[in-house]
């Protein structure tokens, strides 16, 4: 069976859930080959996970050349693998790093690129939700090896234990690819909460919170649900919450099972980042707020009353 290359999404070796999703999707297209690119000693943390989700092979590069440079070295490896293995497709996650690696790989291998796919059929027809999910497009690569960037939360991961053959990739990264060097990494916020784009539940706060300290209400609700915390642009612009957590057209796109919008009006640019969520719940004191036009369940009320009560009720439900 033909190979499908899956670019492993990980943090210092720790695989992200989207990797399992990509491997599951790859199994419907051919034989999944995981491509693990990371710093020295990082693969050990990913090994069992890749086997659990059915990687038939793992192509492996662990080196500082990969870990300490932006995008280009990884694209060099992936392009070499495309040339060597003639895969049916290359799958990568729709994260900032992987989409850049995928794009460069498409350019290097003279292949077509599709981003933000939410589904991919056996004949490699992709589904894309464009314009914030308001138009659904089916598209296909017509040249080279399809390089497809897939949205997290698009496929339900299914385990399929395997014993992957590990193949170190024999490659010397070119000097040209080492032009942009990472000299330091600074951690500003380690929340312990799930990744925004991967989370099954997202609780977002907006201008209605009125002040940075009131985000504690949103965080408490989020923690009760094991959720990630998002924010509207009004909230991030005001400096109430980090930019990394912004949801919307100029922020992250999320597609969780449940999205709870607290004190968010539902502007078209916010909607563009969250309207493909499976269930949308809104708390807003203005009955005319646009968010109520597309929420599945809405409470017209003061968030300072509704949210603490909701948090309590969920805790009771869990205890009971």
């Amino acid at each position, binding site marked *: 069976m033909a190979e499908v290359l899956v670019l492993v999404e990980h*943090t210092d070796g720790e695989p992200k859930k989207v990797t399992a999703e990509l491997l599951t999707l790859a199994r419907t297209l051919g034989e999944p080959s995981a491509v693990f690119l990371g710093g020295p000693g990082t693969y050990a943390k990913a090994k069992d996970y890749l086997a659990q989700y059915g990687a038939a092979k793992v192509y492996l590069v662990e080196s500082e050349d990969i870990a300490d440079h*932006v*995008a*280009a070295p990884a694209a060099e490896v992936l392009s070499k693998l495309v040339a060597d293995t003639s895969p049916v497709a290359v799958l990568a996650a729709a994260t*900032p790093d992987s*989409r850049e690696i995928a*794009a*460069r790989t498409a*350019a290097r291998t*003279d*292949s*077509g*690129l599709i*981003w933000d796919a939410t589904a991919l059929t056996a004949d490699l027809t992709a589904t894309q939700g*464009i*314009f914030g*999910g*308001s*138009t659904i*497009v*089916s*598209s*296909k*690569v*017509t*040249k080279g090896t*399809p390089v497809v960037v897939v949205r997290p939360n698009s496929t339900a991961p299914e385990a399929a234990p395997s014993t992957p053959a590990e193949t170190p990739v024999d490659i010397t990264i070119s000097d040209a690819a080492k*032009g942009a060097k990472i*000299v*330091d*990494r*600074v951690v*500003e916020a380690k929340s312990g909460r799930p990744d925004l784009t991967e989370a099954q539940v997202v609780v977002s706060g907006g201008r209605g919170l009125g002040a940075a300290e009131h985000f504690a209400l949103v965080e408490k609700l989020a923690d009760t649900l094991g959720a990630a915390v998002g924010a509207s642009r009004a909230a*991030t612009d005001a400096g109430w919450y980090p*930019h*990394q957590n912004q949801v919307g*057209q*100029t922020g992250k796109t999320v597609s969780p099972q*449940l999205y709870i919008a607290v004190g968010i009006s539902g502007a*078209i*640019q916010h909607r563009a980042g969250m309207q493909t969520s499976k*269930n949308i*719940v809104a*708390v807003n004191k203005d009955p005319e707020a646009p968010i*109520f*036009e*597309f*929420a599945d*369940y*809405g*409470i*017209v009320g*003061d968030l300072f009353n*509704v949210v*603490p*009560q*909701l948090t309590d*009720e969920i805790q009771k*439900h*869990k205890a009971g």
Partner: protein
Amino acid sequence: MNIVVTVKQVPDTWAEKKLDASDKTVDRKSVDNVMNEMDEYGVEEALKIKEAHGGEVTVVTMGPDKAVETIRKALSMGADKAVHLSDESLHGSDALSTSAALAKVISTLSPDIVITSSEASDARGGVMGALLAERLGLPQLTQARKVTVDPGAGKVSVERLADNGYALVEASLPAVVGVVEKINQPRYPSFKGIMAAKKKPLTKLSAADAGLDAGSVGLPAAASTVLEAQPAPPRQSGTIVKDEGDGGAKVASYLAAQKLI
């Protein structure tokens, strides 16, 4: 410093965006078009670098004739000159051929630094900075929320956004820098700027002028194709309830009924 900044004209973000029914490309005719908002941050950063280190800012765009409005905006903000690649044959280009065409134009300008923004709001590829770096063979410093240029040492460094903070990335010039919107506060064009923009040099290039092969651009050359496009089924609004003191409890019951808790 010879600074090149790319800008793209896009449908206004408040407009309901659509695809043209005939060829499934973005309908740019029935809506107002504006400079991609993120590119305002790119232009601002280019101007800041010029103000700090001297030099010249050249705006580059590929797009229909109408995109000249976006060029004018960049010039009225303070950019010095512009190159507009415009040709019917370019219509429908995918990201790969767009990047090849832009790279070809940009390389003739011998830039010290090329600035793009992280994303255009119509297609949201978020790939052009990476693709230009690849095509031009230059270091890629994308996702930058802060840029520091040291022309004396021939170096540039950026703070690259990461999930939990940032990475400090360094490169030698020339380089491609991609900026995110938190990097600065774009200036508004002044009246003087708007008047001055009308007299600034603007070079319009056809595909042939730019040395692009007819077969390498536009819809026919795209490496991917749109088979079908349909409006998403509209989201129905659900149950909206007024809080009578039990709003939180009601939401919790809803979540329980949906098996979400």
